[in-house]
């Protein structure tokens, strides 16, 4: 393509620097926000007004900000759960099922310690709460390990398996909390039982203790990838499975390990939302919405290019957008589901921008001498 005295060409990039990737990602987000503003327009709302309302509720409001942070932590955990297999070149879209399983695990442990009964807990919270977390880890880890094991041993397609497990876990939760299931709450509303106050998650600086745990986890995972032998092997497998095999890296163990980690982290996300958030403390009737929210982990993971630390600000942004979006849709009469629409548009914009990670637009003076 010629423009004036210059030739414009698309050339393959040899390497993407961190800065270039960040700029491309930010551009993608901006483009997506611009596209979603079309929805605002279609509903008769000035997009700038709309976005201002969203951001001010999400980040500048006494009630909105804590909700934003809680959501962001949830998204961050789901993102980490997506990122670990992603670095191994595998797709974990099963965060939803894994977090459901984690929630089931946590509530099962609480039940075992008598949380549902009326006589109160017979064990100190200091024992029960960590045990609940272990339950969440086991539940999520188990569900997460299945696609990893199948991929490693039998090379089964992990996309389909994780998706199937999402549905399986979804119905399992329904079974547990509705129509007389073991976790059913007393109100007859088809939701899980509510945790007794003694095992509410302790608060640190006003927020549930899962917040620093999530941040610490992100840091830990980043360290794992940057400096450890395990991280090296995972990355090698993700970049070139055949070269990794040649070097003796186990094609059985890497998928299993990364999905195990992914499941565990998702399980913790389930614990975080259903058992640690003030005002919740039960498996809610529309728990499926949380499964839907977990898909933001995919986008967040792609934008952060697999870097758990970079995921933190991005998760915060999306936590705010979805929280604000839900709040504002009633206020501004936009129609339900603006956060879903944003999810969809963001994803496709990001996919489109993938092109720019691999190609750069280069300007040459025409008619080069040899």
């Amino acid at each position, binding site marked *: 393509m010629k423009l004036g005295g210059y030739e414009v060409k698309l050339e393959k990039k*040899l*390497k993407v620097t961190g800065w270039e990737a960040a700029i491309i990602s930010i551009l993608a987000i901006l483009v997506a926000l611009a596209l979603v503003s079309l929805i605002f327009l279609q509903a008769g709302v000035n997009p700038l007004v709309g976005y201002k309302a969203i951001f001010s509720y999400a980040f500048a409001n006494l009630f909105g900000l804590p909700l934003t942070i809680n959501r962001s932590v949830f998204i961050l955990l789901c993102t980490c759960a997506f990122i670990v297999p992603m670095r191994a070149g595998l797709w974990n879209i099963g965060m939803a099922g894994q977090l459901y399983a984690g929630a089931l695990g946590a509530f099962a442990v609480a039940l075992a310690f008598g949380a549902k009964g009326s006589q109160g807990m017979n064990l100190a919270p200091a024992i029960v709460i960590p045990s609940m977390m272990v339950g969440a880890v086991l539940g999520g880890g188990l569900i997460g390990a299945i696609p990893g094991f199948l991929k490693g041993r039998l090379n089964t397609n992990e996309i389909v398996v994780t998706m199937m497990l999402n549905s399986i876990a979804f119905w399992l939760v329904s079974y547990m909390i509705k129509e007389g299931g073991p976790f059913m709450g007393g109100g007859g509303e088809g939701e899980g039982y509510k945790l007794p106050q003694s095992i509410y998650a302790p608060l640190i600086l006003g927020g549930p203790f899962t917040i620093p745990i999530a941040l610490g986890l992100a840091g830990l995972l980043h360290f794992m990838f940057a*400096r*450890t*032998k*395990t991280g*090296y*092997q995972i*990355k*090698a497998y993700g*970049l*070139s499975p*055949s*070269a*990794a*095999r*040649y*070097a*003796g*890296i*186990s094609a059985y163990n890497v998928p299993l390990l990364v999905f195990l980690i992914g499941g565990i982290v998702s399980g913790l996300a389930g614990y975080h939302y259903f058992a640690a958030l003030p005002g919740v403390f039960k498996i809610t009737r529309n728990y499926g919405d949380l499964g839907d929210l977990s898909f933001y982990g995919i986008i967040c993971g792609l934008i952060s290019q697999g870097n758990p630390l970079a995921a933190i600000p991005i998760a915060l942004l999306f936590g705010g957008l979805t929280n604000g979006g839900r709040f504002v849709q009633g206020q501004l009469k936009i129609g339900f589901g603006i956060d879903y629409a944003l999810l969809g548009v963001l994803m496709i914009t990001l996919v489109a921008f993938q092109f720019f990670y691999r190609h750069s637009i280069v300007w040459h003076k025409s008619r080069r001498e*040899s």
Partner: protein
Amino acid sequence: MPQNAVKRGDTVLEVRGITKRFPGIIANDDIDFDIKAGEIHAILGENGAGKTTLMKILFGLHQPDEGGIYVHGEKVNFRSPLDAIHLGIGMVHQNRRLIPAHTVIENIVLGHPRAGTILDLKRTGEEISELCDRYGFKVDLKAKVWQLSEGEKQVVEILKALYRGAKILILDEPTSALAPPETKKLLASIKIMTGDELAVVPFITHKLPIVLTISDRVTVLRRGKVTAHLKTADATENSLAQEMVGREVIFRLERVEVEKGKPILQVENLSGLNDKGALALRGVSFSVHEGEILGIAGVSGNGQQVLAEVLAGLRRALGGNVFLDRINITHCSALQRWLKGMGYIPSDRIDVGSIGDYSLAENVFMNYYFDDEFSKWGIVDSIKVRRLTEELISEYGVVAPGSDTTAKSLSGGNLQKLILARVLSRKPRLLIANLPTQGLDVGATEFVQNKLLEAKKERAGILLISEDLDEILSLSDRVAPIYEGEFMGIIPVEQAKREDIGAMMAGLKPQVART
């Protein structure tokens, strides 16, 4: 296209002033030559001389920057292979442009303008059979291409070009993948074609004897320029080699004599399946001693790849045993084999031997991540790795800005040097080198071969797999030709005659005693 008017000796294709540039290199520089009907005109040149580019231009896959192509005196402009095909140019590629999963007929008829909406495979089959009879080809038209031998696949490609009405047939390295008997048959068919006023243009790298036997004229390329137009009758092997390389060519390396030690590798009755589930390795037995090089000579696709992968632990053995220094490693993982002192240089240096997106240091770490010297409690000592990498880079002369550059920015030769450095620095007791000089230029090839000899001096046992018979004969102590998964013999190099080894590679029993 005037078909009837063509007589033997008419110029059918002329190339004038063809120039093609790529970033940093002039692949074709002002090339002139002409092709006459009924002749066999060989284009000769080393790797990197510009043959591939020229071929692609003649077939419409590239556009020349300057110059023109003239068919029957008229200037033509090929925008795609379709244009070239329309003007009667057919091409037979070295890396078979066939679809293995489809039948011979389906491959031949693919894209044919007369194929019609509904395929009439019966009539097509009859027409193709006629072509086969005419030119002396024998191939099962209903077979799926993956079932055919290399020679048969080449026949299918030739038939495809002929069926499309090609009058000028470009052949890319037509005999490199063939064993001698198949070569003879091919040459006979080519002679019949030229009798029909077809022109045949083989592009050849180093099979100089073939050039002398078969062609009428030769054009030699060196570094993108034409250095000679000769009538073959006026040329000799040496004169051609000189034109190709531009200096006196030395055909043999200095031999290195090392005292042979105990057997480091013992293989008993080893068999294995290839990716399609067919038996590719049929119960081979042999041993490799410390300080010796055992050269496996064979045309690609006869089981060498499977053998290498089974030995390296990358493919499960179907049966048999492998002993490394008397320890049975048949069921050991690849990692365990590295730890026990085996080293493997894979044939695919890009997708298997290295990780393009990793830095040079990270690539070197591929053979050191399991070494406790370089990581404590799971945390990598990256300074140590970098230092090692820099030592290896300078020792092996890898041209690169530093240990942090990505591997994919290295040239083929430099990448192979890095891989060699990484593997050899572990001082393996058994080294498996799978096509170690494939695709490398003369300088890099010499370097690699010398490094193998150095490893031999350090008393490693080396299994060398190569398609280059000269390389095998100059490096090995013993030679084992492989054909269809079996060793046709294991012969000490002093007793190995080139013609015999070549015959065994084609499956013919030798008159030489086995060792």
